């Protein structure tokens, strides 16, 4: 094996070797019983013949010992200098390494994300049940999308973050706005039928649905947070309620399938508007978090347009207790807002010659009659306890809907409510409720097995989305195992038993799902 020395070390080694040679010579001379008196230094002897100057008298020439001492001192000085230089180089290297991340207030841009691959298959007790047609009958691979985060920290108190989910479907649009045509003041005909291109997407293994816009924006907000207890968030954000909605990413949540209070969106999952939030340490172990939300509220196109002037408000409170072995949190969220849907119409008044009828007060006009409007009031509760490896969580959501403009009840609902076929009735005010509980126990397999974390879990879920349509009620039971072989990978295997209340609507079924979620 060859030992390599840096240049400065090689120089140092050379000097030591030179000093050692001199030292050996010195010892050789010293060991001679009667050494000849040195008339001149060795070097002087070497140069003497070529020098016309007479040799220095021996009395003023340094002795070998003196020269050796001088050289040794020189060596020592160089060694010290080398040490100083090495220390300087090390310090500069540290500064260089820290230059990109020195905790300063310069803007920082970071990106990260996650995605998953899921394989699932459902098994129906009655394969011809009505809802079987809308759920996957065949084993299928699918992905919930790729969530990409980008965050910019402009200053210590100002930041902006965007979380997008990359998807593949087209953008929705209001199309074919009806044209009511009047001739000579008399109604002639209506051209077109108002339609909203259907871009509502429902994941194959759940009822969770949302509009696909190609790139689905989960959240995009700017935050100014000068103090722990006060921050302002502007933009689109995840509604600050519960546990699942906060966790929301497949690498973080314990199970595969979302709870039904998320699937059926008893609470708006996202909101567009502003949020004031903060936290306060009440004691060293107890933290109070709060949020006040003001937004467009729920609506058919609430991401970019509110169809009424009624803004939704919400209030979140959460207490978090943390100690060495115990973690507990208890939270609640209250929300009230108005949902309004409208259609857009143009009115065109023409003369008998099909010119613009200027005798009308407003020959060209538009209107946006309400097609559906209701006020919803929602309350949620959530609790989580973690003690060593044990984790137990539960959430409840209660929703009350009061219509001011009720839509027609869908044919399926009317039929199952014993309304004669073909009879149109309007939907009634209703209450919905959903809750779930989930418990798991995390086992660390230890260093010898790569610190793999294994969490078996069980859970139960109840849904009653609309008490006027009890046939939609259902219970779900699940068990599974969550395996984290590395901080970046989460594998899950889950079996779920779905028990609907109305067998004519949906069959009992088993759903088996395997998922690998990746953080990057």
């Amino acid at each position: 094996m060859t030992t390599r020395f840096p240049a400065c070390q090689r120089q140092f080694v050379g000097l030591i070797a030179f000093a050692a040679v001199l030292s050996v010579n010195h010892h050789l001379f010293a060991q001679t019983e009667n050494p000849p008196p040195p008339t001149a230094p060795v070097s002087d002897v070497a140069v003497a013949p070529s020098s016309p100057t007479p040799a220095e008298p021996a009395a003023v020439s340094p002795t070998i010992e003196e020269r050796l001492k001088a050289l040794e001192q020189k060596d020592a000085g160089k060694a010290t200098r080398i040490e100083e230089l090495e220390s300087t180089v090390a310090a500069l290297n540290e500064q260089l390494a820290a230059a990109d991340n020195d905790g300063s207030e310069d803007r920082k841009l970071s990106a990260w994300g996650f995605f998953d691959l899921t394989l699932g298959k459902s098994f129906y007790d009655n394969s011809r049940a009505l809802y079987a047609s809308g759920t996957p009958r065949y084993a299928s691979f699918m992905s919930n999308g790729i969530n990409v985060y980008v965050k910019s920290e402009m200053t210590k108190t100002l930041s902006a973050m965007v979380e997008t989910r990359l998807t593949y479907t087209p953008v929705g649009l209001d199309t074919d706005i009806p044209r009511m045509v009047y001739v000579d003041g008399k109604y002639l005909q209506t051209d077109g039928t108002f339609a909203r291109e259907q871009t509502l997407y429902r994941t194959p293994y759940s009822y969770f649905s949302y509009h696909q816009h190609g790139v689905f924006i989960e959240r995009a907000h700017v935050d100014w947070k000068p103090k722990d207890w006060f921050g302002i968030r502007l933009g689109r954000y995840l509604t600050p309620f519960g546990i699942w909605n906060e966790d929301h990413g497949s690498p973080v949540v314990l199970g595969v399938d979302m709870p039904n209070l998320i699937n059926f969106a008893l609470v708006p999952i996202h909101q567009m508007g502003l949020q004031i939030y903060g936290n306060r340490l009440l004691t060293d172990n107890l933290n109070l978090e709060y949020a006040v939300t003001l937004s467009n509220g729920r609506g058919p196109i609430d991401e970019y347009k509110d169809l009424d002037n009624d803004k939704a408000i919400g209030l979140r409170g959460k207490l978090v207790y943390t100690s060495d072995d115990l973690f507990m949190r208890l939270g609640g969220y209250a929300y009230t807002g108005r949902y309004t849907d409208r259609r857009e119409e143009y009115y065109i008044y023409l003369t008998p010659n099909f010119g613009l009828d200027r005798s009308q007060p407003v020959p060209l006009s538009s209107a946006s009659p309400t097609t559906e409007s209701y006020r919803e009031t929602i309350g949620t509760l959530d609790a989580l306890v973690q003690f060593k490896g044990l984790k137990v969580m539960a959430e409840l959501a209660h929703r009350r809907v009061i219509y001011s403009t009720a839509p027609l009840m869908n044919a399926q609902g009317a039929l199952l409510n014993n309304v004669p076929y073909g009879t149109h009735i309007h939907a009634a005010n209703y209450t919905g409720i959903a809750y779930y509980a989930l418990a798991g126990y995390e086992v660390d397999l230890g260093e010898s097995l790569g610190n793999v974390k294994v969490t078996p879990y069980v859970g139960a879920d109840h849904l009653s989305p609309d008490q006027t349509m009890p046939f939609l009620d259902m219970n779900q039971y699940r068990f599974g195992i969550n395996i984290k072989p590395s901080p970046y990978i989460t594998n899950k295997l889950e079996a779920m038993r779905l028990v609907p209340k109305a067998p004519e609507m949906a069959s009992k079924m088993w759903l088996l799902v395997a998922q690998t979620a990746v953080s990057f």
Partner: protein
Amino acid sequence: MQPTKSLLVALLIALSPVTIASAESSEIVVVVNKANSVTSLNKAQLSAIYKGKTTEFPNGNSASAVNLPAENPTRQEFDKAVLNMSSDDCKRYWIDMKIRSGAGAPPKLASVSAVARHVAKTPNAIGYVLLSDATGLKVVARIRAGALVGP
């Protein structure tokens, strides 16, 4: 040498001033800038700062924590003593936090001496260093035998 004598010699060596000084100099201390009015921090307060639960010292002043790389032994000892977490646990914690809320881990500096220099020049900074590197800094907590103790 008889076993008793060997034990006695070992004990004397272990208790010698040189050994004690060496153990003290390799002790991990949590430090803040000299100008910081904070005098001590307990485990819960440090945990809250290093887990991103608060960005303030108990006196309400802004706290800017800095970390060492995950593979640094000083960081690993600090994580165990203050956060009850292994290196992997910390990674998981911050991956989860980023997915949940976008919150990021404290910035990392390359070495203990870089942390010492950063804390020395930044009034609201907090970090942890070896005692031998804490010259000119205010010690607010110490890690002894894997446990956090007062300054």
